């Protein structure tokens, strides 16, 4: 297998050596490369592949941590229970809803921020970047608490500030109802992660050839025309990558929900279900099965994105 990869790599222009080398030298270079890259590769694989295989194995058992003697092999029994339970599908629905809304809003917001950062005057650019990077660097749990305390019926001020908005009054209990609780959860998630998407888009924006936009401007194209005909089409790859990365990230949402509602009133997401089952209930078997399903969901999303939308992850990210 390694030889076939090697021959492919050998013909790839990017990594082609500047000048032909002696085969001795090539061999030692290859050895050095493997030695340098090996440890990182092995660690990445060890901390993810091994545990997930363990999870697959555990998921075939009925196994509760506080009743170790009752451990029993039940095949796919756990999966049958999960997949026929409305709770799983409800949580999957909530997770997808959060994913779709956050990604959609963040795409628009992140694009706006990227435009601002891209064309801001030198004088304010540093300030803007600093401000935008604060949410990026802040701890998600801190963000969750900040939003939670602001909206909470007891400690919050949002109800008092916005009581002129129809539907908002000092008596509105945001976390007592699914839709309103999800609103705050999504808001916190968006605030915290938009900088990431906007930086990816900023990278894409910088790759749009300046001559094209200038030419369009000279031809009298309006701002909107320049945007939709020149800039966006040229950023397609960057947008796709940003969307996929954020979608997968949003799909794993946990911290915000855990802090704000702990899944109460229809706000439970898949990560939280997995956590509650395996860590809180100590049902290792069932919890592992949910973890495996969550992992499969991520793979499916990735597969759809790459096959259907032809997102080239390796090309647009890291490449130049």
């Amino acid at each position, binding site marked *: 297998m390694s030889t076939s990869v090697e021959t492919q790599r050998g013909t790839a222009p990017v990594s082609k050596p500047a000048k032909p080398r002696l085969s001795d030298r090539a061999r030692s270079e290859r050895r050095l490369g493997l030695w340098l890259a090996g440890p990182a590769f092995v660690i990445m694989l060890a901390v993810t592949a091994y545990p997930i295989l363990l*999870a697959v194995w555990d998921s075939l058992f009925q196994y509760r941590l506080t009743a170790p003697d009752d451990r029993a092999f039940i095949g796919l029994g756990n999966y049958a229970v999960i997949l026929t339970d409305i709770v799983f599908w409800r949580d999957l629905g909530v997770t997808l809803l959060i994913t779709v809304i956050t990604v959609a809003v963040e795409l628009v917001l992140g694009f706006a921020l990227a435009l601002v950062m891209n064309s801001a005057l030198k004088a304010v650019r540093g300030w803007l970047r600093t401000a935008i990077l604060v949410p990026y*660097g802040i701890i998600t749990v801190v963000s969750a608490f900040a939003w939670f*305390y602001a909206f909470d019926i007891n400690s919050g001020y949002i109800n008092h500030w916005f009581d002129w908005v129809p539907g908002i009054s000092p008596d509105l209990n945001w976390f007592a109802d699914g839709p309103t609780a999800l609103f705050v959860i999504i808001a916190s998630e968006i605030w915290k992660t938009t900088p990431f998407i906007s930086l990816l888009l900023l*990278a894409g924006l*910088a790759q749009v050839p300046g001559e094209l936009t200038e030419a369009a401007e000279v031809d009298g194209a309006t701002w909107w025309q320049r945007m939709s005909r020149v800039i966006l089409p040229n950023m397609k790859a960057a947008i796709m990558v940003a969307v996929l990365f954020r979608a997968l990230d949003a799909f794993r949402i946990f911290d915000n929900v855990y802090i704000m509602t702990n899944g109460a009133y229809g706000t439970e997401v898949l990560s939280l279900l997995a956590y509650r089952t395996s860590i809180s209930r100590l049902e290792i078997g069932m919890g592992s099965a949910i973890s495996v399903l*969550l992992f499969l969901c991520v793979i499916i999303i990735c597969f759809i994105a790459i096959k259907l939308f032809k997102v080239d992850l390796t090309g647009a990210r*890291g490449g130049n």
Partner: protein
Amino acid sequence: MKSSPVRCRLTWTIISIVVIIYALFPVASIFATSFKIPSDLTSGTFLPNTWSFTNYEEILVGDAQGLFLSALRNSIGISLIATFIAVVLATLCAYAIARLDFPGKKLILTTALGVSIFPVISIVTPLFNLWRNIGLYDTWLGLIIPYLSLTLPISIWTLSAFFRQIPWELEQAAQVDGATTWQAFRKAIVPLAAPGVFTTAIIAFFIAWNDFVYGISLTSTDAARPVPAALAFFTGASQFEEPTGAISAAAIIVTIPVVVLVLAFQRQIVSGLTQGAVKG
């Protein structure tokens, strides 16, 4: 924008203010909360009626001191070590990817990508069981290793991109001038690569600093519990009273390093995250 410079400036001022408010408001919100005394918490106002340092006193010198300071020590220690290891390994790996010809490059990059999109919660349970069996549960190492799964992939990607842009001819030129391989590397390449490595370190640190799931699942005492997990351990005067003030104060303290790093290195972080695609 062909409008007059004055109008242009005004527009930008307004845009900047809007963006800055958007970005900083929640921080300001929890900042204000952290100065409220318990009865102020229910006043429904943004700012405290009386500014008080009680909450900071509680977590820094008061009852919650042991809890918070040990968590802070764990967070700093674990994040720094995880960052250091990730950056060292990633530098070696990225150097090899950018510079050397060897089989499996694409496999490594794809693996890094796969690991970075991995649902953390999926491996928490098996890791928990594994750590219990081999005695890594509730230890620094027990968090450092999983943190590598978060920090390594992005470090490898960012650094490979950096390294690809380095003009390696310099190294060859130095070698021609009689320097050894190591000298050439140190004199010509290290100064060019250092900013990239440093930026990667900041990004990796943010990621390790942010972790919550591993923190609550793989620790159970102040031997290894990091700050985000410790926030759930605060309590008011009795177990039933809510520690809103203490949590807010702790939240502000753990945000300070983030703000300092961002203030000092915003340019490097932005270019690091956009793979050097943005010009000054």
